[in-house]
C-alpha cells in the first residue's frame, strides 16, 4: 500500500465499504429475484382479480374463469412465501458481509498503525464502530435490495400496462418515478438536513447526559443537578428545532408518495375510458388498467425509508473507513518519518505469525466449544514461543543459540512523540538488556507513557535512534519484537473473560499453577482466594468489577507471565498503599536476577513445554518501570529523572540522592511518611 488512500478521495464511502462487505453476487441476485416474485405476486393478484371480476360481470361460462380463480389463490399464497424466503436470503447476505467487514476491520487495525488501536480504547468510539458496521450492513437489506426490487418491478408493471395502452403505461411510469425516485430523494434530503443541523445538539445532549450519569454523586452533592437538567432540556430543545428543519421536506416526500398512487389511478381512468370509447381496449382491460397500479406502489412505498437508510449507512461507512484509513495510511502524512512503522506491510507478520500462533487459544476455540480449553491443548511446541524462550535464555548465562544482544534495547538521542505532534521526550539515551533494570520517574504528563510505547516499537522513533538487537524495531517483524519486549500500559485492557484467560494474553499456555504463582507474586493471593470460582471467575466488561489497585496488579501478573526478556511496565503500583506498592516495584526491578520459571511458574514448570531444556541457570530479564514513587528504586540499576521532556538527572538511586536536590527532597518526603506510617 504505497499510495496514500485518503477518505473521500476514492469515491463514495458507501461504495467502498460495500466492496469491503464482499457480498456474494449470486446471493444478491437470488434475493432480488425472490423480492420481485413476492411483490410481483401482489401485482399479479390485483391484475387477475380485476380481470376476473370485470369478466365475471359479463356472465361468461364459469369454466372460463377457472384458470383465473386458481391463479388468484396461487398468487395469494406466493406473495407471503416468497417474501419469507427473500427476507432470510437478504439478511443472510448482509450478515455475511458484516462478518467479513468486522474481520477486515480487526485485521487492519491489528496490523496497521497503533494509533487506531489505541483510539479504540475509547468506549464511545468502540461502540460507534460496532454500530457503524451494522449500519453499513443495513444498507444492503433496507436500502439497496428494496430499491433493486422496486426498479425491476416498476419497469415490469409499466411495460405490462403499456402493452394494453401505451399512454397508460407511460403515465404509470411517471407516477412510479414520482413515488420511487422523487419522494425518496426528498426524504433523504430531509434526513440529511436534520442530521446536519442536529449534530451539535446531539453532541451536547450526549455530553450533558454523560456528565451527570458518569458522576451522579458529585453532581447531586454539589447541587448542580437542577442546572445540568436545564442544560439538558435546552440541548434537547435545540435538537427538536434542528429536527423540525428537516420535517418540511419529509412531509413533502410523504405527500408526494401518496399523491403518486392517486394520480396513477386517475390517469388510468382518464386515459382508459376514452380508449375504451374509441374501441382501442376491451372493457375488461380497462378494469385491469385502473386497478393494477394500486398494487404496484407497494414496492415504492418503502423507498423513502430506504433512501434514508442509504444516507445513514453512507455516514457510517465514512466513519468505518476513516478508522481503516487511519490504521493503514502511510505514515508519511504529517512528517514523513513515520513510514514503515512496525513493519506493517511486511508479509512476514501474517505469514510467519500464523503458524507460530497455531496453539493460540484465541484462534482455536469456537464459540460453542470455548467453554473449556485445557492448557494441554495449547502445548505443541510453538516456533514463536521457542524463539521467545531462546531470547529469554540469552541472558548473562549466554548458553543459547541467540546472541545476548538480540534482546538489547538501545536508545541514542531518542525523541518520542505521536506522529504529527511535537515530540514530548527528546535526547534520551538508554540501554536495557536482560539482567538490567531501569526506572523512569518524573511528573505526570512528561511523556513517560509515550516513551514506553516508542521503546516497545508501537510508535515510531521521532528522532535519534532506537535499536533492538542492533536493528530498529520498525525494521523487524512484529513477532520478533514482541518475543523480546512487551509493554503493559496503565490502561491496558482486561478482557471480559476469566481471570486465567486474561493472564493467557501474555502467552497462550499459562497453566493454573503458573497463573496462581504470578498472582501471588503480584500480591493478589487474598483477592484470588475471595473469588467465587478462583481462576475461572469472569471479570466484568473491561474489568469494571475489580478495583483500581487490583487491576494494576492483574496487569503486572500478566506482564510477569510473558516470556519476553524485556518488560516495560507503566505505573504498576498506582492505587496501592505505599507498603504494597514498594514491595511490588522492588520485586519487579529485581526480576532481572530471578529465575523466570521460579517466578511465575512452579519450579517444575510443567506448563512450559517450550523451555524443557533450559540449560543454564536463571534466565535474566531487563525491566523498564515507569513510576512516581521513589522509595523502591534502590533496587534499580539506573534511575532516569524526566523533567520537561528531557533526562534531567540519571544514575543509581544512591547517586541521585547525592547529586540531585529535587530527587533528594522527594525521597526525604517519602521516607518521612514511611517512618510515620502506622
Amino acid at each position: 500500500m504505497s499510495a496514500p488512500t485518503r477518505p473521500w478521495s476514492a469515491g463514495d464511502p458507501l461504495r467502498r465499504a460495500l466492496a469491503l462487505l464482499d457480498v456474494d453476487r449470486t446471493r444478491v441476485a437470488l434475493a432480488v429475484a425472490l423480492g420481485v416474485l413476492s411483490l410481483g405476486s401482489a401485482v399479479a393478484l390485483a391484475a387477475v382479480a380485476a380481470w376476473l371480476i370485470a369478466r365475471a360481470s359479463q356472465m361468461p361460462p364459469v369454466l372460463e374463469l377457472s384458470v383465473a380463480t386458481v391463479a388468484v389463490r396461487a398468487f395469494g399464497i406466493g406473495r407471503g412465501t416468497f417474501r419469507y424466503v427473500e427476507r432470510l436470503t437478504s439478511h443472510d447476505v448482509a450478515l455475511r458481509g458484516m462478518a467479513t467487514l468486522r474481520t477486515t476491520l480487526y485485521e487492519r487495525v491489528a496490523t496497521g498503525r497503533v494509533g487506531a488501536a489505541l483510539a479504540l480504547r475509547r468506549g464511545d468510539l468502540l461502540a460507534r464502530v460496532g454500530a457503524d458496521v451494522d449500519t453499513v450492513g443495513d444498507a444492503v437489506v433496507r436500502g439497496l435490495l428494496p430499491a433493486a426490487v422496486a426498479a425491476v418491478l416498476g419497469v415490469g408493471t409499466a411495460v405490462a400496462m403499456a402493452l394494453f395502452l401505451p399512454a397508460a403505461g407511460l403515465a404509470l411510469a411517471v407516477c412510479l418515478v414520482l413515488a420511487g425516485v422523487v419522494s425518496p430523494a426528498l426524504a433523504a434530503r430531509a434526513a440529511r438536513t436534520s442530521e446536519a443541523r442536529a449534530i451539535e445538539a446531539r453532541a451536547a445532549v450526549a455530553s450533558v447526559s454523560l456528565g451527570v450519569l458518569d458522576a451522579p454523586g458529585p453532581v447531586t452533592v454539589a447541587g448542580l443537578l437542577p442546572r445540568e437538567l436545564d442544560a439538558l432540556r435546552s440541548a434537547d430543545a435545540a435538537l427538536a428545532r434542528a429536527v423540525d428543519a428537516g420535517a418540511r421536506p419529509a412531509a413533502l416526500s410523504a405527500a408526494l408518495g401518496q399523491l403518486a398512487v392517486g394520480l396513477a389511478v386517475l390517469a388510468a381512468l382518464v386515459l382508459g375510458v376514452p380508449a375504451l370509447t374509441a374501441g382501442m381496449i376491451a372493457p375488461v382491460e380497462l378494469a385491469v388498467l385502473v386497478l393494477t397500479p394500486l398494487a404496484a406502489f407497494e414496492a415504492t412505498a418503502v423507498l423513502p425509508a430506504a433512501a434514508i437508510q442509504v444516507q445513514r449507512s453512507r455516514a457510517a461507512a465514512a466513519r468505518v473507513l476513516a478508522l481503516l484509513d487511519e490504521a493503514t495510511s502511510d505514515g508519511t502524512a504529517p512528517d514523513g518519518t513515520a513510514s514503515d512503522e512496525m513493519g506493517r506491510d511486511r508479509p512476514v507478520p501474517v505469514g510467519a505469525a500464523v503458524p507460530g500462533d497455531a496453539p493460540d487459544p484465541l484462534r482455536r476455540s469456537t464459540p460453542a466449544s470455548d467453554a473449556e480449553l485445557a492448557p494441554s491443548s495449547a502445548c505443541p511446541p510453538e516456533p514463536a514461543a521457542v524463539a521467545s524462550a531462546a531470547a529469554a535464555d540469552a541472558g548473562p548465562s549466554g548458553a543459547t543459540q541467540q546472541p545476548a544482544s538480540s534482546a538489547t534495547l538501545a536508545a541514542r538521542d531518542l525523541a518520542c512523540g505521536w506522529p504529527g505532534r511535537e515530540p514530548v521526550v527528546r535526547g534520551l539515551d538508554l540501554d536495557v538488556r536482560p539482567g538490567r533494570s531501569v526506572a523512569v520517574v518524573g511528573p505526570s504528563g512528561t511523556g513517560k507513557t509515550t516513551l514506553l510505547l516508542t521503546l516497545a516499537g508501537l510508535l515510531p522513533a521521532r528522532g535519534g535512534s532506537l535499536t533492538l538487537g542492533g536493528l530498529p524495531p520498525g525494521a523487524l517483524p512484529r513477532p520478533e519484537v514482541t518475543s523480546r519486549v512487551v509493554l503493559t500500559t496503565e490502561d491496558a485492557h482486561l478482557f471480559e473473560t476469566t481471570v486465567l484467560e486474561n493472564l493467557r494474553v501474555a502467552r497462550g499456555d499459562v497453566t493454573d499453577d503458573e497463573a496462581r504463582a504470578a498472582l501471588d507474586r503480584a500480591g493478589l493471593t487474598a483477592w484470588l482466594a475471595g473469588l467465587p470460582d478462583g481462576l475461572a471467575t469472569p471479570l466484568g466488561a473491561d474489568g469494571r468489577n475489580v478495583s483500581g489497585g487490583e487491576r494494576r496488579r492483574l496487569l503486572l501478573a500478566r506482564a510477569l507471565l510473558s516470556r519476553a526478556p524485556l518488560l516495560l511496565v507503566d505505573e504498576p503500583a498506582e492505587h496501592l498503599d505505599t507498603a504494597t506498592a514498594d514491595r511490588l516495584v522492588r520485586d519487579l526491578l529485581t526480576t532481572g536476577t530471578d529465575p523466570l520459571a521460579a517466578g511465575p511458574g512452579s519450579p517444575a514448570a510443567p506448563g512450559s513445554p517450550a523451555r524443557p531444556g533450559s540449560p543454564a541457570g536463571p534466565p535474566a530479564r531487563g525491566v523498564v518501570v515507569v513510576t512516581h514513587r521513589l522509595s523502591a528504586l534502590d533496587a534499580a540499576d539506573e534511575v532516569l529523572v524526566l523533567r520537561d521532556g528531557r533526562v534531567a538527572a540519571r544514575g543509581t538511586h544512591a547517586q541521585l540522592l547525592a547529586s540531585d536536590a529535587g530527587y533528594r527532597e522527594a525521597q526525604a518526603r517519602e521516607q518521612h511518611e514511611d517512618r510515620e506510617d502506622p
Partner: protein
Amino acid sequence: MKPLDPRLLRHARAARSYIALTVVLGTVVAALVVAQALLLAHALAAAVHDGATLAEIGPQVVWIAAVVAVRALVAGVQERFAHRAATRVIGDLRAQLVERSALLGPRWTVEGDGSRVVTLATRGIDALEPYFVRYLPQLVLAATVTPATLVVILGLDWVSAAIVAGTIPLVPLFMVLVGRLTQGRSERGLRVMQRLGSQVLDLLAGLATLRAFGRELGPVARVRELGDAHRRATMGTLRVAFLSGMVLELLTTLSVALVAVGIGLRLVYGELDLVTGLAVLVLAPEVYLPLRQVGAQFHASTDGVAAAEQVFAVLETPLPARGTRPAPDLRTASLRLRGVGVRAPGRDVLAPAGLDLDVRPGRVVALTGPSGSGKTTAVDVLLGLVRPDHGTVELVAPDGTATALADVDPTTFWAQLTWLPQRPLLEPGTLADVVTGGADVTPGRRDAAAALTGLDAVVAAAPLGWATPVGRGGDGLSVGQRQRAALTRALLGTAPLVVLDEPTAHLDAAGEQVVLDAVAALREAGRTVVLVAHRASLVAVADEVVAVRPAELPAGLSPGAGPSAARPEVVA
C-alpha cells in the same frame, strides 16, 4: 409489551397532543379511503359495464381527484408533526431519566439496571423515534381504517364481509401463537447475539494490549468465527421472527384472493352487481393494509418499545425516602458513624465493615486502609449517597441531639460541604469560573489560593490566563491540573466540611506537597476535613486516623453473591 403503553401518555406530555392529532387524521383517512373506493367503483363500473364516456363519469373523476389531493395533504401533515413530537417526547423522557438516575445515587448507577442507563439515555431512547413516526400512526389507522372499511363492506356484501371478518381475528391469533412458540427461542437468540457482538468489541477494545504482547493476529480467526456464529445465531432468530410476518401476509393476501374469487363467482350468476364487486375488491386490501403495516413496523419499533419500557422501569424505581429535617450547622455539629458495613457489589465482602468514625468540627480526619477496603464507599456513606447495610450514620448537634443522616434533607447537608472525588467534577466555563463557581471572590484571594495549589503555574502557562475556557468535565486540563483547580475551588469555598478522596493519586511528590499545604490552609480556616489517604504524608497531617477494614461475609449470608453466570470462555 403493549403496543401503546399508557405510561407513555402519563410520562410524556408531548405524546398526548400528537396522539390526538394522529387519531383525528386517522379518522379522516378512513373516510377518504372509503370515498375513494366507492367513487372508483362507480366510475369504473359505468365505463366497463355501461360503456360510459369520460364526460359521463366526469363528476366522479373530479371527486376522486379531490380525495387524492386531500389524502396527500393528510399524509404530509402527519409526517410534518410526527418527527417533531418524537423529538419532544424523547427529550422529555431523557431529562426525566437522567434526573431519576442521578437521584438514585452512585450505587445504583454501577449495579444492575443502572449500568445500562448511560447507553439508554444517549442512544437507546432514540429508538422511540421510529416508534412514534412509523409505528404509532399505523396503529391508529388499524383502529380507524380497518373497522370503517369492514363496516362498508358489510353494507355492500355480507358474504365478503364474513370472509374478511373471519380472518381478522386469525391475524392476532396466529401472531400470538407464533410469538408464544418462538419467544423463548428469540430471547435466547438475542442474548447470544448480544454476547457474540460484545465479544468482538471486547477484542477490538483490547487490540492495543494484544499488540503490546504480540498476540494481535491470533484473534483474527476468532473474530471471523464470532462473526459466523453471530450470523448463524441471528439467522436462527430471524427464521423464527419472520414466521409471524409470513403468517400475517399469507392470511391477508389469501383472504383478499378468496374475496375476489367469491365475488367473481357470484357475479357470473348475477347475484351481485359490478359496482358492489369492484368496491369490495378495492376495499378488501385496505382492511388489512394497516394491520400489515403494524406488523411490518413492529420489528422496527420493538427497540423503541423496549427502550420505553426500560425508561419506565427506571422512572418507576422508587427513590429512597429523602429526609425532610434541616441538617444541623456543620460548623458545630459532628458526624458519627457506628458499626457501618456495606456489601461490596458482586463479592462476599463487607467493605467497609464495622466502621466507627467521628468527624468533629475543625478536625482533620484521615481514612486509611489497603485498596479495596472500602474507603471510597465509606465516603459515599458519609455523604449520604449510599445507605449502609449495617450500622448507623448520624449528625450530632452540639447539644447532643442526634439525627439520622437518612432523615436529613440532603440538600441542606450537601450545601454545607465540598467534595473532591477521585475524578474531580469541574463545571464548564473559564478557569476563573471553575475555581470560584460564580461566587464573588476577589482576584487577590483567588491568586493566593492558586499559588498555594500550584494552579498559578497552570494559569501563567495558559494562553488566556484566567479566561482560558475549560470544557465540560475539565476538557483541556490534565488530570493533575484538574485536581489543582478543584483544590483551589475547595480553598475558596466556604463550606465547613471538605471531603478529599485520594487527592494525591495523580500527583508526584511536589504535587503532594500542594495537597498538604491545602489541607493545612483548610485547617487554619477552621474547616473540617475528611481525607482518604494512601500516602503516609497525608496521614501525618491528620488529627485523627481511622483505619477502614473489609470483612468477609459469612457464607450463605450474601444475597445473590458473585457473578452468576459462570462464563469461562476463551476470549483472550
